[in-house]
């Protein structure tokens, strides 16, 4: 029987190899896991660099600075020299003598981000949330009860983070109530996090099952068997090496 190979099948084999390599960490740190980890980081960095340059820097920046060379639909906009220079300053971080110039770019980014965030956060996360924490007595009884609970939770949670007064007496009791509300929130977050991780596991298993068919030349079972053999041999050799090391130490002690 001749095995079929095309780019789809090669891709499937790589998917299986990478997935099982990462899963192999559950057994212990090993060469498959380490290789997959490094490949993942290298490929991700390369992909992000390439896509950022061709989809953003090339059309949006160079397209405005050199419209006659880069036809991205923009006209010449000299103000874009500023981000161009700031970008170069960032790269100069690699040159020790000029690395201080990068601070100007970083200062710009931090300042601009803080300024932007300040306004939107006050509007969407503080004012609107305060408004929605208010009780609407026109709603149904259950809605009103729900809103009262939310309001109590918000106020007691805030009291817990109020450190200007010692948490004793009434303040202490309210802040303790706030802790319970916070714990419920953290518990819900943790539950959702676990659910998310299981979903990802399901996704990986589903793909491994698809790639175990004859259409993909039984990629999953073949790669699994090879990995189990290699890991078994590696583990056996490791045990033997540590045994020899122990024997040598014993010999020396004698």
């Amino acid at each position, binding site marked *: 029987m001749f095995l079929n190979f095309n780019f789809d099948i090669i891709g499937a084999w790589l998917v299986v190899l990478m997935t099982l390599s990462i899963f192999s960490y559950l*057994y212990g740190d090993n060469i498959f896991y380490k290789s997959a980890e490094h490949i993942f980081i290298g490929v991700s960095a390369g992909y992000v660099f390439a*896509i950022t340059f061709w989809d953003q820097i090339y059309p949006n920046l160079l397209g405005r600075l050199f419209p006659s060379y880069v036809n991205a*639909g923009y006209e010449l906009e000299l103000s874009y020299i500023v981000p161009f220079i700031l970008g170069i300053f960032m790269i100069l971080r690699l040159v020790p003598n000029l690395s201080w110039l990068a601070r100007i770019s970083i200062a710009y980014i931090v300042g601009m981000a803080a300024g932007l965030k300040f306004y*939107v956060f006050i509007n*969407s996360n503080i004012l609107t949330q305060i408004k*929605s924490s208010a009780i609407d007595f026109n709603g149904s009884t259950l809605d009103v009860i729900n809103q009262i609970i939310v309001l109590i939770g918000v106020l007691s949670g805030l009291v817990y983070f109020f450190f200007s007064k010692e948490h004793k007496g009434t303040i202490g009791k309210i802040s303790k109530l706030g802790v319970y509300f916070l714990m419920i929130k953290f518990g*819900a977050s943790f539950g959702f996090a*676990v659910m998310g991780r*299981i*979903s990802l596991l399901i996704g990986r298993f589903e793909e491994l099952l698809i790639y175990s068919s004859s259409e993909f030349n039984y990629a999953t079972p073949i790669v699994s068997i090879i990995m189990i053999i290699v890991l078994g041999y590696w583990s056996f050799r490791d045990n033997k090496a540590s045994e020899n090391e122990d024997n040598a130490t014993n010999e020396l002690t004698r």
Partner: protein
Amino acid sequence: MKQLLIKLGNVDRRWIFILIGLSVLIPLLKPDWIRMPVKTTTNTEIVFNEISNLEENDKVLISFEYGASTKPEIHPMAIALLNQLFSKGIKVYIISLWPEGVIMAKDVVTQVEKSGVFDLEDGLNYVMFDYKVGGEIVIKNIASDFRGIYMQDINKKFIQDIPMMEGIESVEDFDFVFDLSAGVPGNAEWVQYACDPKNVPLSSGCTSIMVTDAIPYVESGQLRGILAGMPGAAEYENLVYNFMINQNNNKYILDDGKIYPGKATSRMSAQSLAHVVMVIFIVFGNISYYLKRKRKD
């Protein structure tokens, strides 16, 4: 019995991995063995109703902010969303704010096209744009000047040559925004930088881990419902599937196209069984811990 429970607390973690693995694998291998009913929650219903209320030729902006790592949760939502939008003749505008978002968006559109349910044409029914780096800065720009960021679509076609781009200048020119997100930038950034200030309706489909942070926006109406992780995807898939199979004489759904229920529904059995196994471990772990502490005292 006590001894056994104490021993259970010291079980090698690899046994737990194997049991969790099996609890996921068995329902996937034998889906008929375990069938879990999918009950629709209010937040999913709100999303479905919001999209249902849109009119033919309305414009919906979809932002893809997830990658391969969160594909199992969000991909089914994206497919179901496009199915619902296309079956109502709504124009779809796709952008990506995550590097892998473009790959995900292309895959979703290809799957919907390949299903043969709709007669779709790039530039007429939908338009897709490249990935743009910058997260919230891009969102802020879309809110005020869409064309300052996007002058060409993903095929490098100028937007003035794309008929469905006529009149699109900012986020206010869209009738609805839908965010499919797995982190930052995500629904919070869309609320803060675009949809709240410009008063454009927004819904979101997100990973389970993001739900607790997004719920306050849902409660305040800043987000019109939310699809929460895989259960949300399964619920929404069911609603869209039931809607589509009950459509008679819908001019957008082709007669020879086959409508399939999505993948999230079939994954829910595995999800539920894994949760049951985990709850059992948590209960036994706590009993074992309690007994050990009691013995020490």
